[in-house]
């Protein structure tokens, strides 16, 4: 039997959530959903784990803090200490108040850009990447559930479709892959 992918198209995010709940409670695994904006509350229904991007951002941030302090210590204290206006640069802790603004800015710089780059890579949204949404309407006004028969050996395509028919679905498309 050829593997099939079923796309259930909804017109409202709440209806899509009802559809997804129905499938999941009947033991059907939902592969993914496609929508023009975030559907709040869909993640626990279809079993998507929380993203760890915030942890990554924190890591990038503290890396930035350390790099900034290390760099300023090396440049202004260790390598070439300057005496400007009778205020010599002698030790990191003495200069620390003056180093706070750059430390802060560099922390933010590293956290924001590190997180943004990680986000782009994880989402596979990079320059030149092809679009993978199954239907161009999913970025406009349609909300789509994707179910694959390969993930659901206990259910036939017909059974899944008839489950979906019980929800306010707008249309159902099937494709071989």
């Amino acid at each position: 039997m050829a593997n099939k992918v079923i796309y259930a198209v909804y017109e409202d995010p709440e209806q899509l959530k009802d559809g997804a709940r129905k499938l999941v409670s009947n033991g059907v695994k939902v592969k993914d959903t496609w929508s023009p904006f975030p559907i709040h509350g869909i993640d626990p229904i279809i079993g998507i784990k929380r993203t760890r991007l915030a942890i990554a951002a924190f890591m990038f941030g503290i890396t930035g803090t350390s790099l900034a302090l290390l760099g300023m210590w090396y440049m202004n204290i260790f390598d070439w200490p300057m005496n400007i206006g009778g205020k010599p640069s002698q030790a990191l802790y003495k200069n620390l108040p003056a180093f706070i603004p750059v430390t802060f800015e560099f922390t933010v710089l590293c956290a924001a850009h590190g997180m943004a780059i990680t986000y782009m890579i994880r989402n596979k949204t990079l320059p030149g990447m092809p679009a993978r949404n199954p239907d161009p309407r999913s970025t406009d006004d349609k909300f789509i559930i994707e179910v694959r028969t390969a993930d659901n050996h206990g259910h036939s395509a017909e059974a899944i479709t008839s489950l979906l028919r019980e929800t306010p679905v707008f249309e159902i498309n099937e494709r071989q892959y």
Partner: protein
Amino acid sequence: MHSEAAIREPLILGHKTYHDITQDIVGPIENKAPRGWYVLTTIAAIIALYGVGCIMYLLSKGIGTWGLNKSVDWAWDITNFVWWVGIGHAGTLISAVLLLFRQKWRMAVNRSAEAMTIFAVIMAGTFPLIHMGRLWVGYWVFPLPNQYGSLWTNFNSPLLWDVFAISTYFSVSLVFWYIGLIPDFATIRDKVTKPGMKKFYSILSFGWSGNAKAWTRFEEVSLVLAGVATPLVFSVHSVVSMDFATSIIPGWHTTIFPPYFVSGAVFSGFAMVQTLLLVMRKVMKLEAYITIKHVEYMNIVIIVTGSIVGVAYITELFISWYSGVEYESYAFINRATGPYWWAYWSMMTCNVISPQIFWFRKLRRNLAFTFFMSIIVNIGMWFERFVIIVTSLHRDYLPSSWNMFHPTWMDVGTFLGTIGIFFTLYLLFARYFPVLALNEVKSILKVSGESYKNEAAKHQHH
């Protein structure tokens, strides 16, 4: 589903569907631009080219072509820099601070406000660079290994803090803006039919597909970026103010500067947002999305920040007397009654007195009046920086070197030029980019849309 109190005014007027929102925003991009757009862009581009010409002349002849003299060695250049950075504060404030406070009205204005921020910061950055005289060694502001030792940059200097603050602010705002734009570019990509445009927007959309996990990550990134951008907004203008506050010039050496500059920046930034949006909502027919309520919200921000600025001016005045430092007192007496009294009183009128008119509900919901006020506030904020900078410098400790500042046509040309470049960039943005955050506006449609709210209210009465 989360529902909103019926007493709140709807944020999207009329009966819109998700598709209508796409159509209203992508339609103008697909269709031919109205004639007005060509007229405005031509005017802006001519002024921009004039400005580029002035900058070229300035770079080839030197800073002597500006009206600077021995006493007033900072004038319009730094005034324009601070003015533009200030304008550049509204965008990130709207998109980051208001995101943390869950203000839904931000969704209709954040995209264009952020675009404005980015263009304004570019204009701001131009001034220190061209003031260097040798633009091609501008990279010396960064701590790079070099042939002189290495002779490093001085991290104790507020001017260097500013380099870090402005470059971080610019690049983080740009990334924040672009991350929000990616899903909307995907919407345009999937909607347009002309092959050239499809290609263009599929490159810009980075292959965005909008699956569930991507949206989870999108929301997480938006939240965390808003979290780090919020202190960034406040730090940038604080650092700009420290360029002055850490010096020992009477009139600059005040601890009140950081909060005073930040609220002034938000004040002028919102005024510029009003100037741009009031025109844009009319020309691009966005009245259903940028409603009178949105304008009113922004006018409330203008009253609050304008009042903070007013209190700061008066505090500064009081402290100059209370401190007992006669140089400090003189600096302020000279501001109000000296040869630059007209600049001081323009500033006071435009920034302190005029925003108080917005206490009248009728006036803060009046679009023509708001537009007029937004121009007044921007003029006032330019004068604020001029007053702080020039009046503090022009009479220093030695009366023999007391002097006035007379702008040359180069001062005027570079300033006008940046306004031209700014408007050219903004008009290009309005023509080719989604001017509303489509994905965000759609997400509040069924909660804050007028027809949906009416529907929900009807059900409650049964």
